[in-house]
Every structure is written in C-alpha cells, then in structure tokens.
C-alpha cells in the first residue's frame, strides 16, 4: 500500500515537474529567440536596416494577432456556416445561413437577444447617470475622496466576485425563517411581509442582475467623467454664471457639451463591456429563469451542449454587434486628436 502511495506521489510530482519544466523551457526559448533576433538586427546596417526594423517591430505583433485573433475569427465564421455539432465531427457540410436563421427565429434565442439589447440600453445609461451624478454632487464637497472611493471600489472587484456578493444580498429564505438575504430583510422591515424569491422572479431577476453591472461600472464612469468635468476651464464656468446660467441649465448647456467626447467614450466602453456580459449571468444562475444573454448562450452552445456551429453563429452576431460601437469609439477619439 505504501509503495503504491509512493508510486502515485512520484507520478504526480513527475507530471508537475515536467509541466513546470516545459513552461520554463518555452518561456526561456522565446526570450532567447527574441534576444538573438534583436542582436542580429542591431548589427545590420545600410539598405536593409529599415525594412528589417519594420519586420522585427511589426512581426511579433502581427504574428500573435493572426494566431490569436484572425485565424480563430475565420474559423468561427467558417464554423457558423456549417452543421458541425461537436468538435472534430467528420462529414460536416455547409448549410448556408441556417444557423443565423435559427438564432433569429428560435423563441429562446430571440428572448436572449432581446434581453441582451435591454442590457445594452439600460446598463450604460444608468452607469453613466449614476457616475455623473456622483461626480457632480461630490465635486465641491469637503471629504470628496470618501464617497468617491466608495463608488469606485466595486470597479476593482471581479465580475464573479461581485456576483457572489450580490447573490448573498438577493438570497431568499421563506419569510418564516431567519433571513440571510439583505434585500429580503430590508423590505420585510419596511413592511413587505412576503417578498418574492428575487432571483427566480421573471423579469425582476434580469434587472437585479443589471444592478450588479451598474454597481461595477458606475465607479469607472464617475472617475473619467469627474476628471473631464474638472478639466473644464474655470473661466468658462464663471462667464456662464455671469450670463445667468446656473444649476441644471449650466450643466445642460455648458458642462455636458464640454465633456461630450469623454461621455461618448465612457458610454461606448460600458456598452462594449455590457454586450459581452457573461460572468454575472453565469454566476448568479447560469442563465436559468429567463436571464440568459448572448455571450452565455454562446458559451453553453459551444462548450456545454457541443453545438459548435450554432454557438459560432452567436459569436459572429456578438462580434458584428460590437463592431459599430468600436468604430464609433475610434472615430470619436481620432476626431478629438485632430482638434488638439
């Protein structure tokens, strides 16, 4: 029995050691190759110097982008047009846009898409609203750093961590039992004697999950927008005040237009994050009880139920949905750079 243990331990150790050894080998080899390339490149002079420099500087980035982004994208698009049901399946064939037709006609997927759009509309709007509100309110406060830190802290928490925290807040226990969920306890104290089981009540649960995302993103919005607000020259604010603008009018007609570019960047960034939301829905209840969103359904289709082609189609849809946002974002940034 002991010998078996020893054999077992040594085989586990052997595996761990060889894995570690492999990693060290790979990283070391990579660094060595880079050093050699740089060394050789440094010695080259004359006509070849410039082209070699370009290749060496661009090469690794292009190589990695091709390997990690372009090839998988092409594979995914290719897969989405086939009838592949699982990885490595033989004899799959092209079936045109059937997977896309399915995605837009299947009632379950339709609901998923509608829900994702709801996320996309509500979360960025609320996150920016809350962030902007806090930034404005605490702008001239004495201990502004305290509320700012409180709002910003969640940004540092991972989505999964935040979801776990909030799932405790939303925890449900029958009203007769001692409560463990903060939300249930609060509303019961306020006189609602029989609160619902929050996370399985449709459609309330989707909105409760959105709150988690807003909670995380509001801090990010607050910091960026707060900085932009501070960046408005005092003279402009002063002259606006002299012209009789104050409060909401000042905010609407002077401050907002002045931070417009920043606002667009924040909204599109939050939108892109929201469109890709996966962790929260996955952690809270795995997309059950009508809370599924595009990214989670894609994951499940690809890796849980092995419907590779259907999952690929959803991935492509997600990709196409993000593209205009990124384009708009880049264009705004570029225009801003031109102005400066």
């Amino acid at each position: 029995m002991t010998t078996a243990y020893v054999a077992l331990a040594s085989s586990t150790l052997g595996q761990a050691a060889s894995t570690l050894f492999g990693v060290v080998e790979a990283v070391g080899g990579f660094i060595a190759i880079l050093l050699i390339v740089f060394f050789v490149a440094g010695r080259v002079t004359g006509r070849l110097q410039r082209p070699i420099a370009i290749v060496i500087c661009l090469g690794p980035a292009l190589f990695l982008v091709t390997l990690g982004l372009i090839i998988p994208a092409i594979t995914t698009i290719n897969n989405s047009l086939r009838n592949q049901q699982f990885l490595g399946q033989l004899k799959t064939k092209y079936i045109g846009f059937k997977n896309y037709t399915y995605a837009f006609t299947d009632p379950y997927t339709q609901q998923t898409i509608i829900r994702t759009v709801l996320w996309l509309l509500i979360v960025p709007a609320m996150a920016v609203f809350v962030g902007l509100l806090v930034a404005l309110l605490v702008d001239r406060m004495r201990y502004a750093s305290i509320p700012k830190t409180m709002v910003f802290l969640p940004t540092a928490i991972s989505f999964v961590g935040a979801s776990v925290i909030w799932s405790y807040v939303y925890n449900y226990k029958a009203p007769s039992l001692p409560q463990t969920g903060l939300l249930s306890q609060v509303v019961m104290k306020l006189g609602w004697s029989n609160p619902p089981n929050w996370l399985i009540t449709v459609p309330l649960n989707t909105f409760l999950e959105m709150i988690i995302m807003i909670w995380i993103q509001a801090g990010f919005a607050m910091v960026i927008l707060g900085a932009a607000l501070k960046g408005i020259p005092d003279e402009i604010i002063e002259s606006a005040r002299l012209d009789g603008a104050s409060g909401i009018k000042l905010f609407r007609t002077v401050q907002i237009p002045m931070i417009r570019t920043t606002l667009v960047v924040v909204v599109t960034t939050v939108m892109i994050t929201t469109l890709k939301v996966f962790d929260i829905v996955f952690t809270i209840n795995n997309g059950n009880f009508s809370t599924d969103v595009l990214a989670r359904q894609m994951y499940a289709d690809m890796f849980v139920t092995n419907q590779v082609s259907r999952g690929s189609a959803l991935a492509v849809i997600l990709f196409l949905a993000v593209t205009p946002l990124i384009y708009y974002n880049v264009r705004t940034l570029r225009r801003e750079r031109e102005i400066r």
Partner: protein
Amino acid sequence: MKRHARFATAAVGVAALATVAGCSSGSSNTPTASAVPTLTGDCAQYQAYAGHSGSTVTMFGSILSPESDSLNKSWADFQKCTGITIQYTGSNTFESDLPVKVNGGNAPNLAIIPQPGLLQQMVATGTVKKPPAGTVANEANWNDAWKGYGSVDGTFYAAPMSANMKTLVWYSPKYFADNGFKVPTTWAEMMTLSAQMASKMTGPAKPWCGGIGSGTASGWPATDWLEEVVLGTYGGQVYDDWISHKVKFSDPQIQTAMQTVASWLQNPAWVNGGYGNVATIATTTFQDAGLPILKNECGMLQQASFYEAQWPKGTKVGPDGDVFAFKLPAVDPSITNPVEGGGEFVTAFADDPATQAVQNYLSSPQWADSRIKVAPGWVSANEKVDQTLYTDPIDQLSAKYLADPTATFRFDASDAMPAAVGSGAEWKAMVDWFGSGKSIKDVAAEIDAAWPTS
C-alpha cells in the same frame, strides 16, 4: 455523473520536485520484449497481460482525487507485475476537455467516458479504436443493456467500468421506526406513506425534499426523477424510444410521466422538507437537498447511490443507522425491477498491445474485485464480481440490483441523449418547470424544439 469529489490540489514539495525535475517523462508506448516472459508467484495471475514491460498507457477521465487514488491503487499490482505504467489524469471539465484533446490530435490512449452520448460523439470523429477480443469476451459478464450503451450503431466500442445506482430513496431508519412508518415496496404504498407523513409533520417538515441546483449542470437531478418514472411506468422499450426521440417529450406517455412527477415532487403539501415551497427545489443544491433528513425535517429523498458521500462525517449509514436507502418502487408493478443507473466506459484511442492489455485487464472481474477491496463507494455491474467483497451497505444494495440479470436496467437517459438536449435544453427546462411553474406542455415543447435535426 456528478459524484466525483472536487479536485484536491496536490501539494508539491519543492525538494522532491528538484530531484525528479531532471527526468522528463516520455509517455510514448515502447513495447520492448519480443518474447513474452513468464510471470511467477503472485504475478502469475497477470500472465495474460505480460510482454509489454516498459510501456506507458495514458488514461484520461473525470474521476478526481481521492477516488482516482483508489483507482491507482487498484492497478498497482498489475503495473508491478506487467511493467506497464498506467498514467491517469483527471479533470473536472472532462466533458469539454476530451473533444478538444481529441480534435487537437492529443488524444489519451484510454478515456473513461461517463456518458454514452459523448462516446457516440467520439466515435463519430473517427478516432476511437475497436476493443481487442479479450475485452469483447469479458463484455458477456454484463447485462445486455450495458453492451448496448458501450456500442455505437451496433458496433461495440467500450467496456463499462464502474456503475452507480440511481433508483434509490434515502430515508432515516430511526425516524421511520420512531413514527411507525414502514419502508414502502410499491408505488401505491409510497404515495400512501407520503400522505400519512404529511398529515403528521409540522413546521418546515415535509415528506419529501429535493434540490436540483448544480452550477452549470443545474437541473440534472430532476431529469433523473422523470427518467425513473418513465422507466417504472412504461418499461425499457418506451424508455429507449424516448432516448432516440421516437417518443417525444410531447408524447402522451411522457406527458403522463411528467404529471406523475408533478403530483409527487411538485405537490405543495409534500415538498420541500426543510427548505420551503416547491420553487426552492430549483434553488437548493443537490448536495444540500437531503440534509434535512438528519433533522427529521424531511422524510425521503430520491437520489443516487453516490449521495452517500454527501452525508456529514459521523453519519451512520445502514439499515439501523441515521440514514439508509430503499429501492424506489416501480410506478407500474408489472414492470419487473426497473433499475436506472450510470457508469463509465473505457474508450480506446490507441490500439497498441499495451493499451489493449490494460483494456482487457480493466474489463476483467479480477480488476473489479481488486478495486472493490481498495475502498468502499464503488460498485461494478459485472455479474462475475464477488458480491461478498462489498463492505458498505449502500454498495451491497446497489450491487444487488445492478448485477441482477433479471433487472430492467437502463442508463441515465439524459446522458444518452444528444448533449444539446441531455446537457442543455432538458436541464434548463427542468429548472424552469420547478422554479417558475411552467406548464408541462410548454416544458415538453421547449425540450423537443432543441432536439438537433441535422
């Protein structure tokens, strides 16, 4: 399927690591001896597998430590005598890892596949090798149904390894004795007992408890409930046709079975003992589901033999202990001995002699006996296994039914259905059914719609 304990991270001593770091392990199969050596003494029993000394056979499965340690111990003598090294690796994401490995040309020599559905997929990739003659001969020791689940389109590929019994109901013998309840032997008796219990129980106590929460696999325990009822009401043929979708979920027979489940485990007067209303079944984890039995807040829990691992330390399991199990009776008494179970299949991606020797050994009753002796909590459905070796009362109970040639044995249907249904739509639909009270008709329609067409 969800019986394997979480991965216990192996603590690696740095000093020990330094000593072995030098030798990187080559995992290729290098059959050396051309002449088969004669094994003597204790090793003589392994003569049939001799002649491949120095070879390494890689094996990949979902079984994790400490259960994988028991496996390693069970073939320690085999390794010592034959000189074949079995290198086992476990993963808690086995089902998604295996297709990736196989697709990437990195298939293990042997894989321990717990779902016939996944076996079918692997065979369809054209990488699975047919078993050697010895394994095919050993297969006769199993109930015919098992051979069917290890076959794809009529060709036999994989021999079963372990088996678990799903047709069990957990209860507290103490609580039953104190209240004069009798273990039911028919479905009607079980229903009468439930009603009797419900009238006696107070507070959060109810006759039945349940939980189908299980992370990404939430919903699977409810698929088992439906499977038990389908098998126990209509028998094997309807059950098989249901797996192949000849009988749809919207079929009147399956609809009736769902009604039976609803009147049993969605009956507000009968569930959810210790937790609250029916909907709490959807949010309670399957691990927690049966714990109220220990507090006398729940009368019975329908769950598989592997639930034994969930009882807290110190819980006495046995006919006169804190908890024990009885066999769930058939809904229709004319169905003889319906038994639903699960298990694993040893699938080969290589056909070198060493791999085949391991395959032959693992399908032999000798290996099963050796594994049973290592630790309890493991049962084989091999009918040649020495039944007296089982020490654990649940193992004994499970083995009695699993190795019974007269039983109507069927494999977990959701594991045999296409993954899109068996690990997707059906799980989701069950969660909706219990959690948000969706109608039986809608639940069935949702599952049928997800059935892969092409």
